[in-house]
Every structure is written in C-alpha cells, then in structure tokens.
C-alpha cells in the first residue's frame, strides 16, 4: 500500500465516520461510545502479528501485553454494549 492510498483511506474514513454519527439521540450516546471503543480495539490484529512473529524478546513481550489489553478492550467493550442495549430492549417488551 502506498502512502497516498493509506492517506486516501484515512481521509475517506474520517468523513464517513462523521456522517455515520450525526444526529444520534442522547439515549444512545453511551452505547455508541462503548461500541465504537470496542471497534478501536482493532489494534488487536496488529498486536497478534507482533506477539506471534518471535522477532525479539522485547517485541514479543510488547505484543503479548498488547494482545491481552486489546482483547480486554474488544471483548469487554462489545459485551458491555450488548448488556446496555438489551436493557433498552427488555424494557420495551415489559411495557407492551
């Protein structure tokens, strides 16, 4: 991937991110934050490569810790978002 292509992806994704989130109701602010936070745990896939390549003790250790932290971020983030959202959904059922 050339730098220019990488920058293109970056700029387009920034605009897309702004469009996707405009006018989200306040009720969803917290789940949106914790859900998008889980997505930012995507750094996990970089961590997997660093931890698995056996380059040096330092890089493998950094990778190992990074995999652990990023996995907490990803798994915890999606689970807690799901828990919050099912609270919203469960309530609807109770009332109708």
């Amino acid at each position, binding site marked *: 991937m050339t730098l220019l292509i990488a920058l293109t992806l970056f700029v387009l994704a920034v605009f897309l991110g702004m469009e*996707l989130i405009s006018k989200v109701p306040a009720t969803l602010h917290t789940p949106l934050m914790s859900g998008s936070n889980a997505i930012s745990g995507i750094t996990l896939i970089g961590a997997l490569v*660093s931890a698995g390549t056996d380059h040096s003790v330092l890089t493998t250790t950094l990778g190992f810790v990074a995999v652990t932290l990023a996995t907490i971020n990803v798994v915890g983030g999606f689970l807690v978002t799901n828990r919050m959202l099912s609270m919203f959904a469960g309530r609807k059922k109770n009332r109708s």
Partner: protein
Amino acid sequence: MSRLDIIDLGYLVSAVLFIMGLKGLGRPRTAPRGNLLGAAGMFLAVLVTLLNQDILTYTMLALALAIGTAIGAVLALKVKMTSMPELVALFNGFGGGASVMVAAASFIEAVDLNAHTTQISVAAAVTAFIGAITLTGSMIAFGKLKGSLKWSGFPGLSLLRAASLLVAIPLAVLLVMQPENQGWLWALVAAGFILGVLGTVPIGGADMPVVIALLNALSGVAASTTGFVLDNPLLIIAGSLVGASGLVLTQVMCKAMNRSLLEVLFTAAPTGSSSGDDDYGDGVTATSGEEVAMLLEIAKRVVIVPGYGMAVAQAQHAVRDLMVKLEASGVEVVFGIHPVAGRMPGHMNVLLAEAEIDYELLFDMDQINPTFARTDVTIVIGANDVVNPAARTDPDSPIAGMPILDVDHSRTVVVIKRSLSPGFAGISNPLFVADNALLYFADAREAVLEIVAALHEG
C-alpha cells in the same frame, strides 16, 4: 487465491461490518444488531489475521487472547450500571495502551530489519504520543469517576502541560532522523504519559463527558496511526471511523456547555465564588415529602430532571417507583435530560434504562424545553448548573449562554438536593429562591422514597 488475498478480503468484509455496525448503533431499533455486526467484524479480522505466515507461535497468542477474554468478560458482566463511566474509561485506556505497544514493537522490528521508512517512523512517533495520552488520560479519568482520585492539580500545571505538548515535536523529529535510537521513542511515550495525566487531572464535573468522548476519539486515532505503521488498511479505516465519530460526539458535548474544546482542555472551568447558604438569605422555601406528594396528587403532568446527584445516590430505581405510582393515578410523567448531565455522554439514559424506564419517555433538552410551560410539577433530582436560569438571564455569569433546561417555566419546581452548596460551576442558583421553587433537602434516593411513601398513604 493466495493467503494474502484471503487476509485482505477478510479485512474488507470486516471494514464493511464495522461501518454497518456504527451506522446501526446510531438508531435505537438497530443498535443491538449494530453492536453484533461490529463484534462479527472484529471476530473475522482476528480470524484472518491468524492466517498470517509471519505468526510462528500460536501458544502465546492463545494464552493472551484467553486472559484478555476472561478479564474483559468478567468486567463487562459484573459491572454495575452506575459504574459504567469508569469502565468505559478503563477499556478506552487499554485500547490506547495496546496501540502504543503495537506501534513500538513494529517500529523496533522494522528498524532491526532495516526495513523502516519515513512513513513508519512518523506514524510510530504519532502513535506513541497519542496512544500514551489516551492510556494515562483514561486512567486518571477512571480514578476521578470512581471517586478515589481527588487530585485536581498543582501550581504550574498548565506550564508543565504546555511543555509536554511542545516537547513532542522535537522528539518526533529526532525519532524520524535517528530511528535506530530507541530512546527517542520512549521519550515520546513518556511525554504522552505526562500530558495524559496533566491534561485530565484538572478536569471534573460537567467537563467530564467532554473528556471521556475525546479520549474515546483519541483511542481511535491511535489505532488509525498504528495502521500507518503496519501498513494495514483495516486499522486505518476502523481507527479513523472511531476517531471521527468520537470527535463528533465531543463536539456535541461542547455545544451543550457553550464552550469550545480548547476552553474545556486549556482553561480551568469558569467558577464563581458562591459559598452556599449565605447567597440565598431567607428566600429559600423548604419542603417535605408529604408536601410534594400533595402537589403531585393534583398534577396532570410531571417532568423529572435527573442529574449527577441521582447517580451518586443510586436513586434510579426509587425514581421508577415514583413514576409507576404517578402513572397509575393518571399523571403524565416524562423525563428531561440535559446532554451533559452526569459524567459521561448519555449517563442518565443508561441509569434510567437500568431502572427499566422506557427510553421513549426520555426527552432531550430541545424537545422538553417548550413543554415546561404546561407542566404542573418539575422534580429536579441532584442537578444544579444545568437548570440554572442565570445562564439565560445574567450575561456576566460564568455559565452565561450555556443551554439549560427551563424548569423555572413550570408551575412548581421541586429541587431535591442535599444542601445549598453550589454545583460544579461554583455559582449560586437563582432558581432556588424563585417563587415557584421548593427545596427538599435530602439524599436523592431517600427523598424520592419519602415522596412515594407519602403518595401511598394519601
């Protein structure tokens, strides 16, 4: 199709799933599915990454993944809804920290193999700094939200903060010029750590939602710049999506306070010098649970305005009892929620959802404000600055121009508050001495339970 093609194709599908997931998270009806789509995208990304032939040892990976999954799951499933802001901050910090380590490891490896380019060096420098800010900033926010960290700074903090920001530029230049010297990399990480601490320590109260949203955006940016280090399109796309959406949310929070992001970050919150009781003289009318119950019995429409005090007292279930009781006797009950009420974006909504209150009864500021004029009783539970009419009437007030909930327009306002102490802005609130205002001095939960008990008797 080669192994690399399969990986790249998998990443493309993941990116699409993330985009659809984020879109779904923006609407109540589609939000649960959006979250699942995001999780599916992540699962796929991890799966295809494991096909990477550079990965030699799977045992360590399995171990790290297992530890992370166990810790993440326990935290997510055990946390009380009232502790949600802390948990979001904590996860956010972990994401930022992981980005720093990945960028550092890949950069060091590239230098060792003599495969580093200017792109890798610049991206590693930016990631090291931003990721480090995210990590320590989130940890400080975590401590503050938990209430265990009271530290709010020291003289000269802003100077040191500016220094740690400015020093990052020469350090980044040095790193790019002498990539083989790891010291510059770790110095940048250290500068980021310091800035993260100093940037978050002075912030409290109503500024907290802004900072939480901003840290969330920064963790996305750090993931995105890590993508430039690794030359990985999925990290760039997913990271920028989160960074951009986080910045939009930050902007929404800033608007709700009528302050710019720079003001929130670099100037201390505007504070007045109210000392509490003395400002009000004899103008305050105190009330009791029984009196409020009598008012509510003859009301047709009641608006409940929750604030941080409701979260502290964990009064949301008592509030639900009150709502159910009033609805049973034919009173219309709705909730008015200020965007920065609480300590994170949407904090009140989560608490009320936990108490099984329908989100369709929760109204944003713009929706609820025109309806106060036809409201019989408004009950303010543990909120202060966001209902302070001085923001509207007094151009010299520190909060002048901040959009507020016009609770003073309703026939009667009941303010449940432990004392007359000022809110975060440190100013007196003319609402408390208004003719139509009654103050109920009590813990939010106890006060609401009192009112419910009095309604049962009456």
